[in-house]
């Protein structure tokens, strides 16, 4: 083979490329892009895949333990439907300001973007508060039995996501008011909204498992 052919044609050994080359000029390319063109989209998707797998395995563990139990729930009443259902409505409704946020980010409209950020944070406040009542309405403690352990695990895992997503959104919101800004921060905002969708939509199967599965006969 042409061992070292590239190095031989270089004028300077530090530049092992051909000198008679034509250049592919990148200087006019955009400096950021939205959606799957951006690195941030792929990074976020990686996190979503990891966390989605955790949720799925936690749900599998729930049904695994349920399949071995003599009755389900073991030693408790099923969770109270009120708070969980209310929070499902709040979470689903939060997709509206979140959608506005994504649109505003992609349009580069900072005024609308700021409003959407504040609206999302207002929703966060509400669903985190209702979440406290959800834990109280589970009717079981984590150390009561395996049923208690696994419902606390499911609700705890999702709550962790609500907290971190609220915090991320808060940090970005502050940045939108203080700067320094550049175009690709809009991509960050857009991907933050993408992650928000995941946190909301992953709630639906968890809601079904925690609140409805105990009512389905084994």
């Amino acid at each position, binding site marked *: *083979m*042409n*061992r*070292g*052919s*590239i*190095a031989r044609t270089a004028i300077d050994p*530090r*530049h*092992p*490329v*051909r000198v008679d*080359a*034509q*250049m*592919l000029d*990148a*200087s*006019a*390319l*955009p*400096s*950021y*892009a*939205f959606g*799957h*063109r951006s*690195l941030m989209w*792929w*990074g976020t998707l*990686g996190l979503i*895949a*990891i966390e989605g*797998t*955790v949720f799925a*395995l*936690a749900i599998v*563990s729930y049904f695994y*333990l349920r399949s*071995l139990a003599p009755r389900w729930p*073991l030693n408790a009443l099923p969770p109270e439907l009120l708070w969980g259902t209310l929070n499902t409505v709040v979470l689903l409704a939060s997709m509206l300001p979140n959608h506005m946020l994504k649109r505003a980010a992609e*349009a*580069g*409209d*900072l005024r609308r973007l700021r409003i959407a950020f504040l609206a999302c944070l207002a929703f966060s406040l509400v669903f985190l508060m209702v979440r406290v009542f959800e834990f109280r309405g589970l009717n079981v403690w*984590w*150390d009561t*039995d*395996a049923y*208690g*352990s*696994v419902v*606390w695990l499911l609700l705890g895992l999702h709550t962790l996501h609500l907290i971190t997503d609220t915090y991320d959104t808060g940090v970005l919101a502050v940045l939108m008011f203080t*700067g*320094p*800004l*550049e*175009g*690709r*921060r809009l991509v960050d905002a857009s991907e933050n909204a993408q992650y928000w969708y995941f946190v909301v939509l992953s709630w639906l199967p968890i809601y079904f498992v925690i609140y409805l599965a105990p009512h389905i006969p084994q």
Partner: protein
Amino acid sequence: MSSTAFDALKPSGMPRPRGNGVPPTAADSAALERTWRDPPGLVGWLSAINHKSIARRFVLTTFGFFLAGGLLALLMRLQLAVPRNTLVGPDLYNQLFSMHGTTMMFLFAVPVMQAVAGYLIPLMIGARSVAFPRMNAYAYWVFLFGGLMLYAAFLLDIGPDAGWFSYVPLAGPDYSPGKRVDFWAQLITFTELSALLEAAIIITTVFKLRAPGMTLARIPLFVWAMLVTAFMVLFSMPSVMLASTALIMDRLVGTHFYNPAQNGDVLLWQHLFWFFGHPEVYLIFLPGLGFISAIVPTFARRPIFGYTAMVLSLIATGFLAFGLWVHHMFATNLPELGKSFFTAVSMLIAIPSAVQIFCWLATLATGRLNLKTPLLFVLAFFFILVMGGLTGVMLASVPLDLQVHDTYFVVAHLHYVLLGGAVFPLVGAIYYWYPKFTGRLMSERLGQWNFWLFFIGFNVAFFPMHLLGLQGMPRRVYTYPAEMGWGTMNFIATLGAAMIAVSVLLFIVNLLRSRRHGEPAGPDPWGGGTLEWATLSPPAAANFDAIPVVHGSNPVWEEATRPPGTPSAVGGLAVDAREQLVTSVLDAQPDHRSQFPEPSIWPFLSAVATTVLFVGSIFTPWAVVWGAVPVAVATTAWFWPRRRETRTHVALEQQP
């Protein structure tokens, strides 16, 4: 986008930094070196984010753990050399085999592959960096701190002692009081966090940062192997993280996931562990296959035979690896029909492996062989892996598995597969890429000694274990009575272990000596065809002064036949800013320019904060609450944009 409100918060006023030319001028190279190198001093060292610096540290760290794990193994072999030996007592012996397995699996075999990939992938795909370089640094520090925590615990006599897979109920609160298993569980959290982040980094790097023209069908096979591995990490490691979190909660806050008295279940642990644990074997094995696919064409001096079949085999292995986990549980009370399914899949996965072996053999048979040390290690792979594969097929059948379950037969099998499938190719890979890391070749003479001692020593150490297992010697016993008649073969195995130790010692001598006295390598000492051989050894801070444009699968070999009038390299990327070309996923068409972050100490400090949280939570669950505050502060400081950096980015900005 015309919002003036947005523009008001943009720091502006800087002229646009100039882009590189093709060919790059000396001024371009000097500027790129200044831009991409890590800052000096101790703080600079802790702030480093260049993928090569981080990967070098990562590789050295994993090798440090490999040596530590090897010394533990040597101690075990010395203890077992003669019957009724009293060198090591039962309690320490339990810690030795638990630490050995945990070290080799979690602190060496998986991370070393990701570490090597972190160095090579950007070079092989023509990129200046990995994606998310700060996260890459964070993943390294988290890994280092996790490993140091485990060894600190071991030295304080609180090392894990329930085996590397910590089965409950033994590892549960009733049978393992104290903190030993808690340290094990948190080590899992550390290492899996690091590996998961690395997986996301590798996927994004391979999909988005390839040089223009490197379509999916032109990606080097090593990069393909690491890509498939990264996807497997994404879907398997969450399982062991969830399992070990549930374990530590059972132990610390009184949950009952694995406690049958409160309707928990111990087999839940085995399912969750092996849903990760079996794919893990392939997380170790696939990168090994990738090494071989890189070494074989170079030393056969021809392109690989059956590229497409090789890629499809890697992907098929990735899928099938998730359908095997129950074959670790044949000795449990599961439905027989289920076991038959897992036997079938265990047999099936031999097919893609065989396809690859035949492709390599075809490549070797039709090439002109250059029989250097890296190729020797590959040839040893064929012998050892086929042996391990054969015993694997034996173990995949339920009746035989029940007979030899928990005996030295399994120990022999897993060492044949893991050392043959991963460690031999890895050592070959180190000989192959060492000149790229250091600019010098390793000694060929020492390499031959290293190889033969390792190959012979390995077989002397592990082959007798097959027979010991068939004779019924159980795993994890600290001694045995002379009447069992296992003495001679154990003694032979220990001699083999000593040979391996000498061989590893020679390897270290070779690594250290060649650093100073090795033969200077130049950019392409072996005549390789992939892009890492098109740049300096060791590469400049920015890897390539001009990003190459790719026209085939072996760009270096094909450079002379590049179609006339086609571009050879990318120009116009800033030399005074960390600018990287981003390309499309399928065809690697130029898509946009991305501004990469500058070095920062905050990933390091974030890792310190994460360590405080993880270690603190071994002692009090409240650490998860108060420990989250420093983590939040450090990661926010990590993200928060700096004015000067932003000004540069704004000067380079071009709306989509």
